[in-house]
């Protein structure tokens, strides 16, 4: 469903001026050429403050075309406030078709989840990233982290994982779990649950990551090796639930825990709203 054409609001197509889009595309090309490498870019003033997805929005704005079909999700849901706002924003400034169906979308912008429905060749996912530097909590100096990436010195990240095991008996990181991209760069996959990490590996889709506040973007081209860090005797493992989705009965999706009343009753529901709906329709 489209709203009034962008010309009525006197914005350039997709809000950003053409030179900015060109700058972003150049940066994205470089990022695709060097999988996992953080490319600096000139982050523009957007109609949202930092911390609300400006990186993702700028990336989407630079590549969206008139024939695209856009899906926007926030923690897996199409119907949260943020997802609705961003989707409406792009509808207004591009007139491009939007959808909540993963299979029907050509361009998906996401905050902190990858859809359950497997991505197809030709699809592009844009991730909103708060902190692009996987080593930042361990090494505060930007100068030093750049050197570590340049020299492929990632012992520090393994120190963090070691500490987790020493303190908790297992690697405690459950989201934003660090990965090695193309066996070269250590990357943050954005705060997706580690449940979603395996979907990054050899994905047929193009995966783009934008951090507006930190002014970095990076990319994982299709069919790239993406391996989650682990130890030989503490291998990477994903979350599992005993419960199934209360709405569709799925045992395979990432479940949100929802408190339903003051007595503490709770139910588990798919985080991916589109997937859940598909499952329900499939059963009907």
């Amino acid at each position, binding site marked *: 469903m489209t709203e009034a054409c962008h010309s009525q609001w006197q914005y350039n197509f997709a809000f950003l001026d053409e030179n900015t889009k060109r700058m972003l595309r150049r940066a994205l090309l470089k990022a695709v050429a060097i999988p996992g490498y953080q490319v600096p870019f000139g982050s523009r003033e957007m109609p949202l403050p930092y911390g609300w997805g400006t990186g993702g929005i700028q990336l989407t704005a630079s590549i969206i075309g008139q024939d695209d079909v856009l899906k926007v999700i926030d923690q897996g849901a199409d119907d949260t406030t943020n997802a609705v706002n961003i989707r409406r924003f792009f509808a207004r400034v591009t007139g491009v078709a939007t959808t909540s169906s993963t299979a029907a979308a050509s361009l998906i912008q996401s905050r902190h989840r990858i859809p359950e429905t497997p991505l197809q060749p030709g699809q592009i996912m844009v991730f909103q990233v708060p902190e692009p530097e996987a080593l930042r909590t361990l090494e505060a100096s930007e100068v030093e982290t750049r*050197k570590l990436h*340049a*020299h492929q*010195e*990632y*012992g*520090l990240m*393994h*120190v*963090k994982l*070691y*500490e987790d*095991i*020493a*303190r908790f008996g297992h690697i405690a990181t459950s989201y934003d779990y660090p990965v090695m991209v193309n066996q070269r760069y250590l990357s943050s996959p954005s705060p997706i649950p580690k449940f979603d990490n395996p979907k990054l590996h050899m994905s047929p889709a193009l995966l783009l990551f934008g951090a507006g506040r930190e002014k970095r973007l990076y990319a994982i081209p299709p069919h790239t090796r993406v391996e989650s860090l*682990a*130890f*030989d*005797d*503490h291998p990477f493992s994903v979350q599992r639930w005993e419960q199934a989705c209360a709405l569709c009965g799925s045992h395979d999706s990432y479940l949100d825990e929802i408190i339903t009343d003051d007595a503490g009753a709770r139910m588990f529901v798919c985080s991916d709203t589109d997937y859940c709906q598909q499952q329900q329709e499939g059963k009907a």
Partner: protein
Amino acid sequence: MSQPVLSVSGLAKDYGNGQGCFDIDFELYEGEVLCIVGESGSGKSTLLATLAGRLSADAGRVRFRDRAGSSHELTTLAEAERRRLARSEWGFVTQHARDGLRMNVSAGANVSERLMALGQRHYGQLRETAAQWLEKVEISRERLDDRPTAFSGGMQQRLQIARNLVTQPRLVFMDEPTGGLDVSVQARFLDLLRRLVHDTGIAVIMVTHDLGVARLLAQRTLVMQQGRVVEAGLTDQILDDPQHPYSQLLVSSILQA
């Protein structure tokens, strides 16, 4: 033992105001312990940092022979290569533990870090190796998960040694490692060093202002004054038969217990 581990010729680091180190020549062989002694401002720490590649040299050559027998010219080494050698072939023990340790991670992580950087990926084995090294430096393995902030100064320094020796380097640089320690703690630390040097056969270059430390640990000593080496030789010779006026001054200044 026929080829030196380190060959230094004409090395200089000039800060421009007369400070720095100049015309440094010496060779270091496997298993030798060399002390560089001098008072504050003598240039000894500058020399050590230049040898280890932490400061760029202004003149001269430093040739290092690694485990495999290959030679590297350290003054012209690319940063990536220098960092690789610094991880696996040599170590650096600093005067203050906080400069040489990660204070916010456990002792075990501190000791294992270099092994992990070199590609070791088995948590159980890393932990066991770290525990063994803690015991070698006389820290109970029960402290493996404690942070260095919970350690005494002497323990922190011993932890630094473990962190540096875990990759079995050929050469360890030490910058006044006993500087901040109490006398009794210092004695224990020096004994540990003696034992480790003896057991592992590593070469050591240690900067100290304390001739007693040199006497205890080093076969050889360089005496520095105002950036230059004024006397070099066997430690016992320099302490018992100093030739240079400044050496004689230093030796005569030692307080006898």
